[in-house]
């Protein structure tokens, strides 16, 4: 590594919350580490203390119940979700998106909660979770609160999370179980790449929801549509709701064009 930091792996939630309270700005929570360690190596972040949350025993693992819906714990990896039979039956869209994230090795380490907390505009798993109306459950020494995922992202790599807070789970209501849809991600190469733009669509009963990635400072979910909506209506709404930029990966115009194309394809397929 480039500099010396301290590594701590608290075993309980109260130990973790005390550490966050004590270290504030100088610490960083680590789950899979697949973004954080890359940033540290590149000199983009320089936390003094890394707090590994994977050993916290009172955090819950991945589970599903009618009452609580789908529960994604802070240490749940993309691979855990991809391999889970219940997720594959009830929330297949989440698996479609998780499979598009980076490489096998990274999916074995990267967590869903980490992908969300990193808050990249291109976060692959954010789109299905937005469509599925996920909630983020936050705790700190001073209490707990629940924020809707769509309100959790506040800017490029910025979230509603305060320095002393940690996400203890993400939940998806069981009313969205059985929803079907599609996820399309445009990449420069077939393998391991960030998205140039991505679109996710989920249909459940009379409801249709669409979320778009890499086209605004945060992943964006459009207003709810009736299931019979036309591709043109969704595309009009999408183009009003996103603010893509020209960047190193592609141009703004190409992004807008592909959003429209993917919406047309998804509406036709789903």
């Amino acid at each position: 590594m480039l500099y010396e930091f301290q590594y701590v792996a608290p075993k309980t939630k109260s130990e973790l919350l005390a550490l966050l309270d004590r270290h504030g700005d100088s610490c960083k929570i680590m789950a899979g580490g697949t973004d954080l360690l890359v940033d540290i190596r590149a000199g983009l972040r320089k936390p003094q203390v890394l707090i590994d949350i994977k050993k916290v025993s009172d955090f819950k693992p991945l589970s599903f119940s009618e009452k609580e819906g789908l529960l994604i714990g802070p240490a749940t990896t993309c691979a855990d979700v991809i391999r889970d039979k219940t997720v594959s039956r009830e929330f297949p869209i989440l698996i479609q998106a998780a499979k598009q994230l980076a490489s096998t090795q990274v999916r074995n380490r990267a967590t869903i909660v980490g992908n969300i907390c990193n808050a990249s505009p291109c976060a692959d798993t954010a789109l299905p979770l937005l469509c599925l109306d996920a909630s983020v459950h936050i705790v700190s020494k001073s209490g707990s609160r629940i924020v809707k995922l769509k309100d959790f992202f506040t800017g490029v790599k910025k979230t509603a999370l305060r320095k002393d807070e940690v996400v203890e789970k993400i939940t998806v209501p069981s009313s969205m179980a059985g929803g079907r849809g599609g996820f399309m991600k445009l990449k420069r190469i077939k393998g391991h790449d960030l998205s140039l733009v991505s679109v996710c669509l989920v249909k459940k009963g009379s409801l249709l929801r669409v979320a778009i990635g890499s086209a605004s400072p945060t992943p964006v979910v459009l207003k709810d549509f009736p299931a019979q909506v036309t591709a043109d209506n969704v595309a009009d709404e999408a183009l009003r709701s996103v603010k893509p930029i020209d960047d190193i990966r592609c141009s703004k115009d190409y992004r807008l064009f592909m959003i429209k194309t993917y919406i047309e394809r998804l509406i036709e397929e789903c």
Partner: protein
Amino acid sequence: MRVKATINGRRIERDVPDSITLLHFLREDLGLTGTKEGCGSGECGACTVLMNGRTVNACLVLAAEIDGAVIETIEAESKDGKLSKLQEKFHKHHASQCGFCTPGMVMSLKSLVRENPKPSEEEIREAIDGNFCRCTGYKQIIEAVQDATGQLKKPEDIHYA
């Protein structure tokens, strides 16, 4: 940080600096230099090892994180100087050229074959989606896996041997 782990079947207990990676620990401290460093940032897969049976990029895991884990590296692949089936078929089908990607490739494929003894071509490609090879063009690697899993029956299936 004090870590206890099992590495290639051997139990170890060591004090490791908090800020070094598993890759650095394997290569510099344990002398297990079969695991390679390409990019150091999770892109190339040259550093692939198995952690509790799953492939990881050793450059993206801290040595401190392996406490309690079982780690397997390329050094455990051959036994008493005898190549594993996968290694033997890599050799036969020219799946290793400069060889820099090979340890990582073999680890990714070992993990695949363990879970899925007869992988399709698509499944083989997926299993190495995090392993770059700048030499072979991948076809020789796929053929080697197909041979190692008994899926190359006819002579006309073999292009690189």
